[in-house]
């Protein structure tokens, strides 16, 4: 054991004495810095854009009106009326405030009134529209919400269930003082410190998800393969939990869910979107390239420089030397991922502050929301991304042992890392053959597989891990054979 540890120390000394390793490490650190800085910059950009002056907004209204007049698509008259009203009353286009919504809603009612079949219905809709405009002019959003509650209660089409769902959110607005407004799917920067705003986001997404559940219900039963229903249910559970438990920032595993914001995390750019985004496989890939360089030259460089003879002249069995080399590659992968994780955490704190550091990780199990640590969640993302890194490094390691040529082992390893998944997707799409699921790179996107965004139907995590395991075994046996049995010339 002592001997093995010493051999591993030897490998570390050799790797880190090389200038190329140091340069790669600096490049990886710089990449982490650039990634965080780019996110920070995009937020600054957004803020500048949000504070653009109203005179340019007037122009924008004029342009919209002019376009409506020239295109004259059905209902254009009402829309021109609406935009003219908004322009004249200086309703901020970008603010996404409740007035914009209320005016839009009012003019929707007006246009519905034109198409109404009975006089009483027409009168009811017109009255509603006028009441809405009145609340806007009085700048009284609570009255607007009360109006909406009344309309929901009066609406003959809605079922009791649907009514209850809509009333829940409206009453929440009144009791928690949350103005209606546009929700920003994924890029609302105000959710960082504006308490009312994240609630509005959660409410809008909750409403939208509940609506989908109703609309999708029949369709989803008929067509089991759609994820829409499951996603909506997930979003309803999570957002209800957030609203009831006052959870602004959070992370969740369910990526690609539109009702949770664009990236599946809490809407807006904040510590957690940036930090969990750093587990991105394209960023982790750079660690992979460094590891491939280490693994791909681990054995072959000893042969090409002739130093292998001075390794083998020691009282150490060959398999121990091989094991030490592989273990050093593995531990290096773990250490580098851990260091990269810490570095990104610190950089993100440096740029985005400590707001929301305690945000929980939310997931849904058996209909209940389960909370966990978001730091653990991101660490798990790093591990999942690290599996590809380790697999390709093992490939290079075995090639290094088999052909004893560093350039070939490193070159092929990097090539596979960069193109493996792309080529597999292209193959799967062009050949549509089932055997492609057994290709290594059809199984390496573990993060995607966990979120059910898979290339093949029924690709599960255990299956993917099995395929990866088989490939790893083949790689390691090849490495073993190449190093143990071949003569040293």
């Amino acid at each position, binding site marked *: 054991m002592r*001997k093995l540890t*010493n*051999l591993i*120390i*030897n490998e570390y*000394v*050799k790797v880190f*004495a*090389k*200038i190329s390793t140091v340069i790669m490490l600096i490049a990886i650190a710089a990449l982490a810095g650039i990634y965080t800085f780019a996110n920070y910059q995009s937020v600054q950009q957004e803020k500048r854009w949000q504070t653009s002056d109203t005179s340019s907004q007037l122009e924008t209204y004029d342009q919209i009106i002019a376009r409506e007049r020239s295109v004259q698509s059905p209902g254009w008259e009402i829309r021109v009326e609406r935009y003219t009203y908004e322009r004249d009353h200086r309703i901020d286009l970008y603010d996404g405030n409740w007035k914009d919504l209320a005016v839009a809603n009012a003019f929707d009612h007006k246009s519905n009134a034109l198409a109404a079949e009975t006089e009483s219905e027409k009168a009811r809709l017109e009255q509603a529209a006028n009441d809405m405009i009145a609340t806007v002019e009085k700048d009284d959003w609570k009255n607007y919400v009360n109006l909406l509650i009344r309309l929901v209660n009066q609406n003959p089409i809605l079922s009791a269930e649907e009514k209850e769902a809509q009333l829940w959110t409206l009453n929440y607005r009144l009791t928690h003082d949350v103005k209606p407004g546009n929700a920003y799917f994924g890029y609302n920067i105000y959710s960082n410190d504006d308490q009312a705003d994240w609630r509005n986001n959660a409410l809008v997404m909750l409403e939208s998800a509940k609506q989908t559940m109703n609309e999708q219900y029949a369709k989803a039963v008929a067509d089991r393969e759609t994820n829409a229903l499951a996603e909506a249910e997930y979003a309803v559970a999570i957002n209800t939990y957030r609203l009831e438990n006052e959870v602004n920032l959070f992370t969740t595993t369910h990526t690609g869910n539109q009702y949770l914001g664009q990236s599946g995390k809490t809407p807006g750019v904040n510590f957690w979107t940036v930090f969990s985004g750093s587990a991105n496989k394209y960023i982790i890939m750079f660690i992979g390239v460094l590891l491939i360089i280490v693994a791909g030259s681990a054995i072959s460089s000893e042969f090409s*420089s*002739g*130093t292998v*003879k*001075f*390794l*083998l*002249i*020691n*009282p*150490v*069995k060959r398999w121990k030397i091989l094991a030490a080399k592989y273990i050093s590659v593995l531990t290096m992968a773990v250490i580098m991922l851990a260091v990269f994780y810490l570095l990104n955490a610190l950089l993100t704190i440096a740029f985005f502050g400590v707001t929301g550091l305690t945000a929980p990780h939310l997931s849904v199990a058996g209909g209940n929301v389960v909370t966990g640590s978001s730091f653990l969640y991101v660490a798990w993302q790093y591990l999942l991304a690290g599996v590809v890194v380790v697999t390709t490094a093992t490939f290079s390691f075995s090639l290094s042992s088999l052909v004893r040529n560093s350039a070939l082992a490193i070159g092929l390893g990097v090539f596979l890392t960069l193109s493996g998944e792309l080529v597999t997707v292209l193959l799967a799409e062009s050949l549509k053959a089932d055997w492609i699921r057994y290709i290594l790179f059809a199984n390496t996107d573990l993060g995607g597989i966990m979120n059910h965004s898979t290339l093949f139907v029924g690709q599960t995590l255990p299956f993917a891990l099995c395929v990866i395991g088989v490939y790893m075994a083949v790689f390691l046996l090849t490495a073993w054979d190449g190093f143990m049995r071949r*003569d*040293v010339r």
Partner: protein
Amino acid sequence: MDIVLKINSLTKFMGGRKIIDNISFETYAGEVFGFLGPNGAGKTTTIKMALGMLDSDGGEMEICGLNVRKKFEKAMVNVGGIVENPETYGYLTGLQNLRQYKRMRAGVTEERIQEVVRFVGLENRIKDKVKKYSLGMRQRLGVAQAILHKPKLLILDEPTNGLDPAGIRELRDMLKKLAHEDGVAVLVSSHLLSEMELMCDRVGIIANGRILGVKSTKDLMNEAAGNQKIVRFTVGETGKALAVLAEMSLSAANVTSQTFDLPVESDTQASEVNIRLIQAGVPVMGITPLERSLEDIFLEITGEGGNQIA
């Protein structure tokens, strides 16, 4: 004397050709053993097989009584050496290189490293990167690496490569000291015979993958002295002299206008020739006995078996 390295009927095929043919020899503690042969004779291949770097197709190797194949780690504890060129990690310093070996061998202390560095005379450059070393310095570092753990068997493959004459002399003294004072069995392979003549206690001569003979250097030299002597005559005119020799049914070699070499059985025969030459009126300016070096013997011996290579 203790047998340290024992090689018994070692055989190796490569590409259908028998490149090592039934080689057997032993080296003892306290002696410098020279493994001599022309390039391609199989010296390095034999050494690599003895150290388990190459698989053999027959035969046994034992180091300090331990079978190299069956008890590799225990056997290799007793071995230090340089196989072919002294390859080191160029991007590490000399000291870092030695520490690599320190970690792989038991019982090597930092003090021992300093001691070895002084022994090979590298103290001024040991903290420089090895890629800046000359070949001679790398050879010294190789020796330092080889003796780091005080091995009982020291194997040096072509150790004088790249050394200047002073360096060769130093190495010679170093190896003799290790063998004669510290009781190490030293195995030195080389094709530079003049060098080995001064360095080795015994030599094994190898050609075409076969051992042609193992003898002590003294015996070899005596043999050379015992058999035949060559005497160089310097005369006024070789033409007349050769005629005289022909009368005596003797033949000369290396004939020039003034000199010829004559193999003689004894000093008496040389003086007889001298008398006959003077009687025939050939002036004799000098008679010099020529010593036969190990090299001559070597070429003679390997000449029989080494024609294909030479």
